[in-house]
């Protein structure tokens, strides 16, 4: 017996030809997953614009201050970046609650639930790293708390250096943290999101309630 040839199905699942109409109803998902992705896209878009003005390191606070007061629309873009990030955290939380409320983590969706939990964790870490990058004393203080928490773990000093770099109270932000916040964490988040969407379709789509 000849097995049917299976082509690469990623795009086919992301954009399927058939979707049960009942699954498209607003009440099935409350659009919370889509809204958190929209918030992610707004955060990425505004984040790219912020990159043109932001300087990591000792100049972090001054660059943020000049961005807000001198750069055209700098204050609104920074504010939009902040609010979209907060919106993302909130919509992800409600999305998780909706999934649990509707028992939507049942087989075969367990793996996708696990991916979702990691997406939630990454969203929190991204938000926290953004808070530290402002380069103000509040951010530096929070970095100090995170550093001492990490150093409490076996091998934690290395972990703290790997993630936070050389952040100290009153010394702005660090290049290491900047790289994590701008490249690594959003990159991993995007890949996991695409995998999450693919699995939603692969596991039979969103079920009608």
């Amino acid at each position: 017996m000849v097995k049917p040839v299976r082509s690469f199905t990623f795009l086919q699942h992301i954009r399927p030809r058939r979707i049960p109409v009942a699954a498209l109803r607003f009440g099935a998902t409350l659009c919370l997953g889509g809204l958190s992705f929209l918030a992610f896209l707004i955060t990425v878009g505004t984040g790219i614009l912020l990159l043109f003005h932001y300087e990591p390191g000792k100049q972090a606070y001054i660059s943020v201050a000049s961005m807000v007061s001198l750069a055209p629309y700098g204050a609104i873009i920074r504010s939009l970046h902040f609010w979209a990030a907060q919106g993302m955290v909130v919509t992800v939380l409600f999305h998780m609650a909706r999934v649990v409320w509707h028992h939507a983590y049942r087989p075969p969706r367990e793996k996708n639930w696990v991916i979702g939990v990691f997406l939630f964790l990454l969203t929190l870490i991204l938000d926290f790293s953004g808070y530290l990058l402002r380069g103000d004393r509040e951010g530096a203080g929070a970095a100090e708390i995170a550093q001492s928490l990490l150093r409490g773990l076996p091998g934690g000093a290395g972990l703290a250096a790997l993630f936070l770099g050389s952040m100290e109270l009153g010394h702005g932000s660090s290049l290491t943290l900047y790289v994590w916040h701008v490249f690594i964490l959003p990159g991993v988040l995007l890949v996991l999101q695409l995998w999450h969407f693919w699995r939603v379709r692969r596991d039979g789509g969103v079920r009608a309630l």
Partner: protein
Amino acid sequence: MTERDRETDVIELQDRGRPRFISIEELQVRETIAVFMGLAMLLLASSVPLALGTPPESPIPIHIKAPWMFGGIQWLLLRFPVSIAGWIIPAASLGFLLILPWWARRAGVRWGRFAFMVLALFWSIITLAYALQA
């Protein structure tokens, strides 16, 4: 009715020489919600100015505040040993979330929902408690 049936509708209309677009109501609802959320964020961003923090060289003593979503952990850190407040409780919560589908399969989905809600309530209350005291 499936998406395929809708495609068939479009083809039938075109065959009769009256090509026109058929709107997909559910997608329009989603697009409208997305537009409103985008506009709400824009409105929020333009009407609520985001203040700058304390300059790094400022000599004024400051109260170190965690971002709101980590307020619960900071509330715990003020009351319990660091290892419990900073690692054990957050890691246990995360671990519970990871095993929830398998645990709920054994205990029952209603228990799964109940346990999740207790966990969510716990973190919401301590986050709110931190926000109120800060």
